[in-house]
């Protein structure tokens, strides 16, 4: 076989395989989208295709805008919190040696190793003590805590990848450590920041169990809890279509953010080959 034919064969093979896999991965989301608009008996859309299920979602309980707003507030708060805390912490781990350095890092990583249902009751009590029970701020703090292991890891690696010469040069010019951080390093680790922010957003936007337990006021519930409540009706009758509509509403902002920031976070992981 001539080399060019072989290459054509290989390339076709590649695209066929990869496209097939892509379809497989996209299928469930596409199905959710289709199921949310197709006619289903007993749902909000019984005849023909349309947005009946979305209408149900809009009108449910306190109304979709309320739930969306709560989700946005919680997500924004936890993103800001996660980015700030993990950046400062990552900077500390990468550039400084201090007492408790290793202990703090291990304690942060240990958050990954605890089954989250175990922490829910003590967290609930703790938030009550801090006066943050039933509040979006309290919820955002807890969600931020669960994000920290991954975020601190990424930021630490990002900072470690920046050559120390940069710091030293700036300090020779009389910059304090804070100035070094804000004026120079932050730009260098921007991909890491984007990654951390995006993952923190995804996690807190779509979390179900933590807000379910920590929030009781019906007007403070974020969207995922409302969607699950909506679909669990009288004994055994499940309104699947409204769940699919909820999935679509929840997924669309994520997909959008994702596509927009794609270049940012791929490089975010890349900053610094991942060391231990």
């Amino acid at each position, binding site marked *: 076989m001539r080399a060019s034919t072989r290459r054509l064969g290989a390339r076709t093979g590649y695209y066929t395989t990869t496209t097939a896999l892509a379809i497989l991965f996209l299928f469930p989301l596409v199905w959710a989208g289709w199921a949310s608009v197709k006619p289903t008996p007993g749902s909000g859309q019984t005849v023909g295709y349309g947005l009946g299920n979305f209408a149900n979602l809009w009108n449910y309980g306190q109304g979709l805008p309320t739930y969306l707003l709560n989700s946005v507030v919680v997500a924004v708060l936890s993103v800001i919190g996660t980015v700030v805390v993990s950046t400062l912490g990552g900077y500390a781990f990468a550039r400084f040696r201090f*007492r408790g350095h290793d202990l703090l890092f291990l304690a942060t990583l240990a958050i990954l190793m605890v089954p989250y249902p175990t922490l829910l009751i003590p967290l*609930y009590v703790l938030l009550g003590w801090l006066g943050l*029970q039933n509040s979006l701020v309290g919820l955002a703090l807890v969600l931020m805590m669960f994000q920290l292991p991954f975020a601190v890891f990424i930021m630490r690696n990002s900072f470690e990848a920046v050559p120390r010469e940069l710091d030293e040069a700036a300090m020779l010019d009389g910059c304090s450590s804070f100035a070094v951080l804000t004026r120079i390093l932050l730009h260098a680790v921007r991909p890491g920041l984007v990654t951390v922010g995006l993952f923190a957003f995804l996690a807190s936007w779509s979390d179900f169990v933590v807000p379910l*337990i920590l929030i009781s006021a019906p007007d403070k519930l974020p969207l995922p809890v409302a969607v699950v*409540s909506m679909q*669990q009706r*009288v*004994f*055994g009758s499940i309104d699947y279509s409204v769940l699919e509509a909820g999935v679509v509403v929840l997924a669309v902002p994520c997909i959008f953010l994702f596509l927009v920031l794609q270049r940012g976070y791929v490089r975010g992981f890349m900053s610094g080959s991942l060391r231990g």
Partner: protein
Amino acid sequence: MSKLWPRFHCSRAALIGAAALATMASGIAGCDKSKEAKPSGNPDDGTKLTLWTRAATEAQSKLLVEAYNASHKNKVELTVVPTDNYAQKIATAAGGKALPDLFAADVIFAPNYTSKHLFLDITARIDALPFKDSLAPAHIKLGTYQGKKYAVPHTLDLSVLFWNKDLYAKAGLDPEKGPTTLKEMAEHAKKIQALGGDIAGTTMGGNCGGCGVFALWPSVWAAGGEVMNAEGTLATLDSKPVKDMLAIWRQLYADGIAQPGSKDEQGPTWVGRFQSGKVGVGPMPSTTLAMMDAAGLKVGVIAIPGPDGGQSTFVGGDVVGISATSTHVDAAWDFLAWSLSEVAQVEVLAKHKDLIARTDLTENKYSAADPRVVTTLKVIAQGRTPFALNFNQTFNDPQGPWLGTMRGALFGPDLDQALAEGNAKVTASLTQK
């Protein structure tokens, strides 16, 4: 940054940590005796109350709350919690000593909650009600623990037999007459199965413990049998009435008359199977009647029979009570008492085609309008709500022993053996501390 910081850092942090832990632990441990409400003349004084309910009960709770809020100064704020996570939320709130003022509970879980003192003792208040003897007795019984009453009925959900009149007509059966014995139901189902296609004779929740309890146990009671003793501490699943009933269902599955897919039904789509119009006859929750009508089905309703006759039902639904940590007891009781009043029962619930908790109001104009509702209400007298402290972990929980026993009896190699072994496990679970 103070030079003192690094020196005291470790020990101070440790002290603060220990203090925080100790305070938190003692705070949680400290028994919060529910504070007596300020004695106010009128309980309807503009208090804000919180009520939690399961998503499964949302419709009825919402109706009552809206009607109450519209006619009272007190305002009830309703929180709807996904049914499958309800126990988790209650447990967490209880652990944090922060239960809402009022919360509803699945009636069969009531003994668990009352034995853990989550509800406030309202014996005196209930006994002061003029209609106290007309409150659904099964619900009151389940809300009673060691002689004290803790909860009142909130919603009722009974298990009954639905049959699809169109499919009956097609199969040559009389569409106006439902089966009066379980064996007759099997016969009807067989004829409907013969229609072919994807039509099934009957259906059940084969992988759902709660469905099995709800749908199958009435046949045992109708035959005069028992599934366990009155205290809920000893199971009698290996008794003849239980075996007879399970043998019939086992045969239905073996012959393919019971919808094969329903063998793996975990519960969420159990009702949807009948709603699709593809099932001829089967046990269903009475509260889904309106849903079936809305789906365009012509449904007949009859009580669940025993193998050779008799009638019974599983009287399910919710009870509601005042939580032990509430600080607005008088206002909360005002809502509860109102929810049981004639106005609430008839003009709110019955009008909405829901079953009512007061046996002295069953002849109201709304319920009388639909003969099927009348049929259902009449069965309450022969219905039961089984009592057991560990009901959830034994019968409803997918990891509990009942589901394995039921499936072993229905689908396993040996029905008698499955019941003999399972019965011991169920008893052990019922008595587990």
